[in-house]
């Protein structure tokens, strides 16, 4: 999805994992995905460079839809749909 679309997307759950290093954000995403319904959108806030690459791969493996990443000042917003 385009950055503009992602910026305006309706997020059902937001996870702030900016305080943790790898694998913290990935584990936070794993924990939180159980709390949303199929079709709902989650954003993961992470300042960890590795997580930016991990979450799309994790989505592919687990059957979730990776929607894209928006770069903010000093962190990333990573979007996915369950």
């Amino acid at each position, binding site marked *: 999805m385009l950055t503009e679309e992602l910026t305006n997307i309706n997020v059902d759950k937001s996870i702030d994992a900016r*305080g943790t*290093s*790898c*694998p913290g954000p990935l*584990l936070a*995403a794993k924990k939180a995905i159980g709390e949303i319904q199929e079709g709902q959108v989650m954003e993961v806030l992470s300042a960890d460079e590795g997580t930016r690459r991990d979450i799309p791969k994790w989505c592919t*493996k*687990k059957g979730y839809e990776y929607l894209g990443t928006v770069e903010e000042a000093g962190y990333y917003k990573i979007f996915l749909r369950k």
Partner: protein
Amino acid sequence: MANKKLTLALFSGSVDKLTAAGVILGGAAAEDMDVEIYVLLQAAFAFKKENAMTNDRVAEITDKKDEFLASLKRLEAPHWTEAFKTAKEMTNVKIHICGFAGKVWNGFKLDDFIDLADDICGIGEYMTSAEEADINLFI
């Protein structure tokens, strides 16, 4: 579909390698892998109740130990025992203490080791488990 399986022959009793093991366990937990950990020689020292939290030995780049430990603290990286515990909460992780390794460090029963440990076993179980694993690591 059955979960993928990771076996880990954990030999090291050093916090640098145990921390790396904890990171890998986190990755395995994120993917719902089944994990079997076999605690071998030096790792059994680190798993003893009286050593787990006080042991601060590092295996590599030992001249920078203080910098390494300070960085872990600054980054708020969880202690390796915490990382192992998180993985256990999130996926199926079994931790087996090698009976011989336990005895080397005067650990004769399960109660001599931290609560993360599930049982004491022999090497035959590791061989069987490693044969069935999708990933097998030695740390």
